[in-house]
């Protein structure tokens, strides 16, 4: 008698399971707890991590901008002005520096930032004089708008 059904019960599964599992686990190696070792826990954690990374690409831009704004505000308050006044007067004098550059100047180039703050304050004073004065005095130096063509 030959037993034939025994060999029919052997199944050959897929040969690639190890590599498919490692593909997921390699993204989980720096996680805490069993999520960095056990596949079923790691799959969920890795998926969440990727979702957070996707969402964070938009948030990063917002967060960096708020960071720059708070740093510029702190720097201007050292010079006796406030952030909205600085930015408004800089745009009125057509200084087209964005917040990232002004923040870097405030950190690495404090004297240039002081000159920017003085420029903004001068423009602010000219604005006050123009608003509160009679209109007979000429507008100040910094109120002249240069149109570059």
């Amino acid at each position, binding site marked *: 008698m030959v037993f034939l059904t025994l060999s029919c019960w052997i199944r050959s599964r897929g040969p690639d399971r190890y590599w498919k599992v490692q593909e997921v686990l390699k*993204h*989980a*190696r*720096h996680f805490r707890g069993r999520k960095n070792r056990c596949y079923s826990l790691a799959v969920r954690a890795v998926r969440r*991590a*990727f979702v*957070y*990374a996707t969402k964070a690409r938009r948030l990063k831009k917002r967060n960096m901008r708020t960071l720059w704004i708070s740093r510029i505000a702190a*720097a201007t308050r*050292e*010079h006796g002005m406030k952030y909205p006044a600085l930015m408004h007067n800089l745009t009125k004098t057509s200084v087209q520096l964005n917040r990232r550059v002004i923040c870097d100047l*405030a*950190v*690495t*180039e*404090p*004297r*240039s930032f*002081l000159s920017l703050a003085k420029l903004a304050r001068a423009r602010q004073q000219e604005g006050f004089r123009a608003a509160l004065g009679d209109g007979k005095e000429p507008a100040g130096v910094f109120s002249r708008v240069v149109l570059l063509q």
Partner: protein
Amino acid sequence: MTSRGTPSRFLQSVLQNGVGRYVCQLKRISIVFSRKAQSSLGVREFIEEGVVDYAKKNPATVVYVSPQSCRIPKIVAEYLNGNVREEIITSKTAPQISDLLTKLTDQSGLDVIRIRKPFHTDNPSIQGQWHPFTNRPPSIGPIRPQKQQEAE
């Protein structure tokens, strides 16, 4: 692909290459291809025409041509900092392979991973970096030698 899960580096050049003399960072190129297979057709054409010109134009790079019986033709590029890059050139035409070679020649051997910032300075601050005492007036005046008024 999280930023903490994948490696990243800062923008840098290898030993300030290019400030003085420019040194080509590509050390060695090995072209591995097969004599008869269909996939290495473009490679064989390139070796007939373009390889010698390339080797003459880049005297600092050593070119090895090794015909072997292999299924996939490859270019193995080794750089001066030890990194090895393998490019697969199955079914590529000769001009595509020469473009690939120029790309490999222009690269420095640094890893092709995420670069954190697209700029880098060794001297970020010229006027002196801000610290809490930069905009504060000094609390005591300048230090002078004491005048001894009592006559000796």
